[in-house]
């Protein structure tokens, strides 16, 4: 029982750490631009596959490749905004459709290049090995992930509240028109927001996937659904909510998987059920403003 | 004649803000009443509460003897209250005719439109608001004045006995205002009770025989325009905001 509780807490925390990184960017983009970016999970997945592809033509220095990949995905996020999202950002349907198309395209592109076979990218692990206590062993990379996630989230919070760009991001998220009247280039702010969001998803992948595996091109959707659950739970656009929501979803998933009979096969339904319940009961989320109509 | 609308102790709170505070008034059948107050006084909220688009925090609204507090908008419309919006709304991809066919298809609208058919009835309304020659075009290309007329046409489609007009004159040129005034007067002559808002007093003064004034969500005065205009509190309310009568 003791081991099960430690197992639940550890894996719940890892889940929370990874979900918070992915959902934070997702929530930011929605909060600032009301852009529901369905390609967010695809950025995560693409990072993983780039880690797989790039060593074949780059010098095999893991940190260098990882850095290049993250930069690459960040740029792709920016390009996606400039080329695809920006012209359509006033129609919510258009954005949803085009980001859906983008996500699907990335998925199929990866499918053509790498098929559905799973791969390992464990050479990108930052810390190898495990830390053992009598009843449980902790994977070091996951421990690192938890701390890295906390640090990144804090730095991000500082960045949003203190930096100039952060302040204009907040201004735009509160009132886009007023912000543009105050001389803020809202489109540029949105561009940076999308790049930050892609960057966070990409960092999440770089930290997490080496200790996991590339589970095929469609794995991005699962993380996207989880981000939805997190963001809907915490409130669209609420950054505190996203982090709290991420850990709630993480622990609930882990709890279901370990303590509920037949739990493992239900665990992946939990986030979707959270989405539906939250949408029906309190669409603005726990921390969200009631701006939803 | 008798009372048609009775509002008692109406209160609406948005979070910490009280938009309408213990507001009460009565309107007789066939009256022509203005609701005045500076910007942000809570006029639109009162309209939203009467027409059901918002639910009051407390208080009662009775229409024609029926308690309509908290009813859904379409049910209130089907009792005979129609409204227009301050910001022009229209079904932008439908033709003007179809824009008016929609209210004619409501439960109350159907009662009168059934005999001649919804489309014929709608085009008669289009004629009465003076847009019949544009029946087939969509509203997106209409000038602002015509959109205001369309709004009233849409309200008329539901065969109302009580009409809520929210700032019908805002953004109109002088000529357009006159045409619209004429239209509203004609409706009043046909027996429709009219309740109208405006934040510029002068416009309403010439139009209505009775005004109700509100400020910061509270009732401050009720009476003929001249009397209300000279009311000290009303003057303060307007002057305090530096708007005046101009």
């Amino acid at each position, binding site marked *: 029982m003791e081991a099960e509780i430690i197992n639940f807490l550890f894996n719940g925390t890892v889940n929370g750490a990874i979900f918070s990184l992915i959902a934070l960017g997702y929530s930011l983009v929605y909060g600032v631009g009301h852009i529901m970016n369905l390609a967010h999970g695809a950025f995560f997945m693409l990072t993983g596959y780039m880690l797989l592809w790039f060593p074949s033509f780059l010098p095999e220095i893991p940190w260098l490749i990882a850095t290049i990949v993250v930069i690459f995905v960040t740029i792709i996020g920016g390009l996606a905004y400039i080329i695809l999202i920006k012209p359509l950002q006033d129609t919510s349907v258009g954005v949803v459709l085009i980001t859906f198309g983008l996500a699907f395209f990335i998925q199929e592109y990866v499918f053509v290049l790498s098929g559905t076979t799973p791969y390992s990218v464990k050479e990108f692990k930052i810390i190898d090995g495990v830390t053992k206590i009598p009843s449980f*062993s902790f994977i070091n990379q996951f421990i690192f992930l938890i701390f890295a996630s906390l640090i990144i989230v804090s730095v991000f919070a500082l960045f949003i509240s203190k930096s100039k760009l952060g302040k204009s991001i907040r201004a735009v998220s509160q009132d886009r028109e007023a912000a543009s009247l105050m001389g803020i280039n809202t489109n540029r702010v949105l561009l940076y927001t999308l790049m930050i969001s892609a960057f966070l998803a990409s960092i999440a992948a770089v930290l997490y996937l080496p200790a996991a595996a590339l589970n095929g091109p469609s794995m991005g959707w699962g993380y996207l659904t989880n981000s939805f659950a997190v963001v809907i739970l915490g409130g669209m656009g609420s950054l505190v909510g996203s982090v709290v929501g991420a850990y709630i979803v993480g622990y609930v998933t882990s709890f279901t998987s370990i303590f509920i009979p037949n739990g493992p096969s239900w665990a992946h339904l939990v986030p979707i059920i959270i989405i539906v319940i939250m949408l029906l009961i309190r669409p603005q989320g726990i921390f969200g403003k009631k701006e939803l109509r | 004649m008798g009372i048609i609308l009775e509002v008692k102790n109406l209160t609406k709170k948005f979070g910490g803000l009280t938009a309408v505070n213990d507001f009460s008034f009565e309107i007789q059948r066939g009256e022509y009443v203005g609701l005045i107050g500076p910007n942000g006084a809570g006029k639109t909220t009162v309209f939203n509460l009467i027409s059901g688009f918002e639910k009051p925090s407390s208080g009662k609204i009775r229409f024609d003897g029926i308690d309509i507090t908290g009813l859904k908008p379409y049910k209130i419309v089907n009792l005979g209250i129609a409204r227009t919006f301050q910001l022009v709304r229209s079904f932008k991809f439908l033709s003007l005719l179809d824009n008016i066919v929609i209210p004619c298809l409501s439960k109350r609208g159907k009662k009168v439109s059934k005999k001649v058919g919804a489309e014929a009835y709608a085009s008669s309304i289009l004629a009465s608001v003076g847009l019949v020659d544009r029946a087939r075009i969509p509203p997106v290309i209409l000038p602002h004045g015509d959109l205001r007329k369309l709004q009233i046409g849409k309200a008329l489609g539901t065969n109302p006995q009580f009409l809520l007009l929210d700032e019908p004159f805002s953004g109109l040129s002088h000529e357009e205002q006159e045409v619209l005034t004429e239209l509203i007067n004609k409706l009043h002559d046909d027996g429709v009770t009219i309740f109208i808002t405006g934040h510029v007093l002068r416009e309403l003064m010439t139009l209505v025989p009775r005004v109700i004034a509100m400020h910061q969500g509270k009732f401050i005065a009720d009476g003929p325009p001249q009397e209300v205009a000279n009311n000290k509190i009303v003057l303060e309310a307007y002057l305090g905001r530096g708007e005046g009568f101009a």
Partner: protein
Amino acid sequence: MESLTKRILAIVLIAVIGVGIGVGAWIFLAAPEAAIKYPGAPSGFDKDNTIVIGCAGDTGEIQGDANYEGAYFACKHINEAGGVVINAITYYFGVTKEDTDESNPNLVPSRGVDAARRLIYDKEVDFAVGGFRSEALLAYIEEFMDAEMIFIGTGAATDIFCEKVNETYADYKWFFRFMPINSTALGGQILYTLADFILNINADYPNHDVKEIGILAEDLTWVTSLVGAIKDVLPLLTGGWATMLPEILYDISLSATDMNSHLADLQADGADIVIPVISAQGGILMMQQYALNEYDYLIFGIDVQSQLDTYWDDTGGDCVYETMMQTLYRCNKTSKSVAFWDAFIAQFGHEPLYIACGAYDAVSAIRDAVEDAQSLDPDLIIPVMESWDRSNPHLGVAGNAAWWPNTHDLVAGYPFGYTLWAQWQPGGTKAVVPALIYPDVGAYGNITTGDYVVAPWVHTEWS
């Protein structure tokens, strides 16, 4: 005047468009006729003298390619040996394939139906082999049955096809399964092997009781009956020694933390042996986390991906000490096995997947059946194939194929259809283990090629 020129112009334009569509359609419909080729068939032979084998599989994915490779290789061997003579006419074998796209996680069943129709009506094949994903095959199998064409399954393990043959023989008699043995039989194989294995390994470790058995399986239909069988029967077979832990059925869209928590869960429950039942993506993650944490149990079960020779690299060597079912490896499973294995690697540069072995055996069997029946008529061939029962098996590279006449399912169990157990050993080599389970196989000699190695961390723990 002007309107007349416009009109003429319009007519010309429409005519051009019309002619364009017409020509396009003509090229489209008429052209493929000439393009059909049957790889494997010797050149200079026309369609009439070629027995065409159609491969239904997912081209571009390992399973579909393996199916094609196996069939192609068989055709090549048959043709090199002079083809087959029917009524004094020599026939050669050709092979063609259609993409059913069934490995795609976004399965489109109509695609498989379309591929089957192309094989039957466009490529005009005489026999078909293939199938991998049960739900896709369930849709397109009907096409072959409607066309009364013999179809040999080489990849799907579910019992359901053979149940159909049994229930409505008249509708499904054209279906035979060559690979793998059905999932119930797989369960049986695991049971007998594991029961022996548990009892034997206990003898090696006097200080530790190896008896807690966990199951880690993907939550899919084909797993259900298998898991149920293991749970019920394994304790009985070990004389009540083995006890079963609650099984873990995971959602196939798993993430790393889930797999880690399942493995930790099994560790916490005190598992000694864990039986994975995995056909999809889970295996690589399982082995990675297992090797990293060095959990105190052995992995011994089904992990389809680990049959691939690329698995060692895919897991970065983490699959070491995993023991799993393997249809064929380089050993004397039958007298043909080693020769086939070496020739296949020489031809294609990689090891044959179980589907390739199945397809090879299937095509070879078709050749023998055609020769026996002296006809290409399914009605005459089916009785020949049904006559290959336990008393008269058909010798293949992957086993002695014998069918149950009423279900057309492979007879499972030594010496007919059975699977080997192979372990990944340090250095990236695979060995067929353990010697205890496979005694000398008569004329073929010993089929085990290595000794079972207990993972060192488990060895330390148990000693």
